[in-house]
């Protein structure tokens, strides 16, 4: 192959190790958060190695360490058997590592060619670099089914083609080890299939590939080995051929101490929420939610299970008035506006919808605001918080905060403390208290216990059940299967923006749900 990245790589002697990469005892903490704990992994040369785990399991951190974006607190990296220090990206590139990030690192208004040579130019003038790169690119394209027009601007390319440019960038730098971080998150199924063909071709040429994903189907389809990460630790590494989606799903989610929730049978009433053919496009015009239909009755919890990023966030945002949508949403028989100025969080709240968002720090709270100010957030127009039409009744909000803090056991119970000074669990209790105490007809609740300690989890679960027993309709979105199974009266599984089907928690099991979450039952719900 003709590719000659400038500077070349360190000439390595005949490899003494069968492993392209070995990580020994890698640990990394961000403040109090232990992102990686004593990670050990061996990746044989010329294989595709999958790393799977839920969001926040520490996969991306690990790969960022390997690419020199972060420095590990402790541990050792061996490349082809040689201990290698990777203090920066330059060293990683020299060591033959290429990385395709989840969010592409491309310059939008540059051509493909310019992006490929950026940082790997041959000399101070561009012309010779471009000429050479054009030829190398043509060779690479032929070799690996990586055709892209070298003169196209990135912003004119589809996401799939942009990803190919990222791969070409790595290959142009003569990467022998290619890391792909959640590569299919933004691809259509056809594009994903093409990607896997490319990866197989690369493997056949002796490249080593690390594929980071949370999608079981991809692991089963593409990898030789798979390592499972959970909460910063590596829980297992197995041969893909000897594992099954179910066993991997179990390893991923983990067998947590199952919190039994005291829950009587649901006393189901009238239909509260009707959703018909609801679709949401993101800002790039990609359809994230694809014509979802369901309904929720009073006194019922509908749990939406699924791997993160399959349209659950968009569903919550459309219902909560944050995202523009098409289709129909009706609350107690009345249609709600889906577009235009009337489709906003205020009108939704007025209609009787409360919303505990998935991301409490970005959406649910103003982190710099004091707790008492956050208790009014979204309800700052509520009549009981006004002293007169002009002036807010801060004393009333304060008193309400004290009351809610006591009821929901928020610690420390200091209304003046800014939200950012509370622990995750107590932040969540503030949000949950604010939304539940509104006595809504419909509660939207996303990831109610993400980053929340055990005690708070139990408390929040009890509150959700209590609200149900008051005859409220609840839409619960969670990536925690345990949570879905123990709280829901009905379970729907989301995959790729669609509902894969509804199940009864009494009769289904984690295995069946896991398969549906992986998109494997194939039947879209009706």
């Amino acid at each position, binding site marked *: 192959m003709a590719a000659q990245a400038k500077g070349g790589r360190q000439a390595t002697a005949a490899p003494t190790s069968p492993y392209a990469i070995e990580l020994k005892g890698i640990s990394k903490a961000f403040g109090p958060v232990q992102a990686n704990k004593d990670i050990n992994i061996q990746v044989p040369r010329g294989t595709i190695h999958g790393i799977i785990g839920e969001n926040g399991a520490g996969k991306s951190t690990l790969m960022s360490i390997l690419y020199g974006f972060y420095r590990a607190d402790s541990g050792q990296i061996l490349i082809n058997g040689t201990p290698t220090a990777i203090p920066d990206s330059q060293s990683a590139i020299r060591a033959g590592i290429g990385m395709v990030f989840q969010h592409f690192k491309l310059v939008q208004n540059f051509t493909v060619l310019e992006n490929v040579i950026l940082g790997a130019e041959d000399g101070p003038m561009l012309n010779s670099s471009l000429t050479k790169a054009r030829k190398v690119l043509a060779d690479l394209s032929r070799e690996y089914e990586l055709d892209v027009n070298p003169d196209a601007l990135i912003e004119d390319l589809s996401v799939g083609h942009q990803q190919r440019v990222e791969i070409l960038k790595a290959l142009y730098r003569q990467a022998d080890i290619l890391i792909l971080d959640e590569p299919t998150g933004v691809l259509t199924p056809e594009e994903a299939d093409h990607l896997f063909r490319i990866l197989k071709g690369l493997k056949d040429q002796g490249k080593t590939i690390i594929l980071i994903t949370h999608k079981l189907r991809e692991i089963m389809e593409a990898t030789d080995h798979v390592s499972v990460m959970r909460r910063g630790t590596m829980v297992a590494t197995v041969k893909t051929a000897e594992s099954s989606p179910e066993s991997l799903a179990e390893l991923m989610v983990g067998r947590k101490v199952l919190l039994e929730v005291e829950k009587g049978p649901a006393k189901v009433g009238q239909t509260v929420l009707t959703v018909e053919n609801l679709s949401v496009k993101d800002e790039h015009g990609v359809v994230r939610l694809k014509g979802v239909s369901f309904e929720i009755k009073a006194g019922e919890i509908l749990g939406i299970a699924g791997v993160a990023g399959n349209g659950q966030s968009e569903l919550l945002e459309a219902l909560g*008035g944050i995202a523009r949508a098409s289709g129909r949403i009706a609350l107690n028989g009345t249609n709600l506006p889906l577009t235009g100025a009337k489709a906003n969080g*205020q*009108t939704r709240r007025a209609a009787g919808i409360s*919303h505990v968002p998935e991301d409490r720090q*970005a*959406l649910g709270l103003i982190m710099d*605001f004091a707790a008492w100010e956050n208790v009014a*957030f979204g309800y700052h127009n509520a009549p009981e918080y006004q002293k007169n039409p002009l002036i807010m009744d801060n004393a009333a909000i304060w008193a309400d905060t004290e009351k809610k803090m006591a009821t929901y056991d928020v610690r420390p119970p200091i209304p003046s403390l800014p939200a950012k000074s509370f622990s995750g669990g107590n932040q969540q209790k503030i949000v949950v208290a604010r939304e539940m105490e509104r006595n809504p007809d419909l509660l939207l609740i996303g990831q109610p216990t993400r980053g929340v300690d055990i005690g708070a989890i139990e408390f929040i679960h009890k509150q959700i059940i209590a609200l149900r027993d008051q005859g409220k309709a609840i839409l619960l979105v969670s990536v925690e299967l345990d949570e879905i199974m123990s709280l829901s009266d009905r379970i729907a599984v989301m995959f790729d923006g669609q509902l894969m089907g509804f199940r009864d928690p009494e009769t289904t099991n984690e295995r069946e749900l896991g398969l549906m979450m992986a998109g494997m039952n194939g039947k879209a719900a009706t």
Partner: protein
Amino acid sequence: MTKLPTWADVVLVPLISLLLAAIVSAVVLLSIGQSPMEALSVMVEGSVGSAYAWGYTLYYATSFIFTGLAVTVAFHGSLFNIGGEGQAQLGGLGVALVCLALPWPHWTLALMAAMIGAAVFGAAWAAIPAWLQAKRGSHIVITTIMFNYIAAALLIYLLVNVLRPDGQMDPASARFPEGAKLPQFADIPLLQNLFAKYGPDGAVKLGKDGLAVYEQVPANVTFFIAVAACFAVWALMWRTRLGYEIRAFGKSEKAARYAGISPFKIIMVAMLISGALSGMMAINNVMGESERLLQNSAEGAGFIGIAVALMGRNHPAGVFLAAILFGILYQGGAELGLWTSIPIELRTVVQGLVILFTGALDQMVRMMLGVFFRPNRKGAA
């Protein structure tokens, strides 16, 4: 980086910034062969050493309170309104049009009408950049700068071609009618006693009519309106729903959307209020002091508002104190120009340095302070 306690962030960061600005200014003075101590004493004496000095200091401070509040309100909505200068000039136009429109019977009526005129014209000048930001995403910093220059050109045109009375040479409007004259400090009962002139014998000087003679100072009733404006802005930002929404939007646009707060509304309203406050400054300088509209009436006060807001940590109480401080700087700087060979421009240097240290190098100041606030590790180990 060590996190600073809140009080240190609120109190120490601006004070250290001021100190740094003072040190750099002193170095500049030393390097041009001047004595920083002498400069300081002249400035202090000339700005706070007598009632007369205060009469000037507070006059400047009044203008700075308005422009500082203007920047503050926009800042809370995470909008950097650098167009206070132009908005203040337009405010001056509003004041002039109102004052010249009628033979005002009493200053209170004229004041109220002029306040409305100033606020409306100032807000109108902020409205276009605001709309462009909210609807077209045009960067508000750039558009407000452009509008400063457009305002300057517009006013020159109006003063030369439209408002200038026949036979007058300098580009200025006609003098306002007597009924539009605002009471200055020396005209206000009780307060005026502070400004009484004393003869060599120590007795109060008397005029021909047998009444006491007072020193004329430019500080006028607008000062009290400025103080009221501080209170009003405080109430707006921390006691009303609108202020709540502006602050929430400024902290996190994403969260604001979740709460159903309209970005368009907030950008427009915050900028209109900001522009209105800048415009109201004209009550002080145009109506209260020059009593006619002059070219470049705002004299840079719109820009000083940036320094005042940064120094005052975007809180009306802080803005009030910072405005007084800059009033001292301005009056003191003028005294320097009178009594020493140090050019009056020293105050511009200090102003720039304060903006630099409080607004752009604040991380550096925090890092410096952080050294003193490291948690004691001995016990923790």
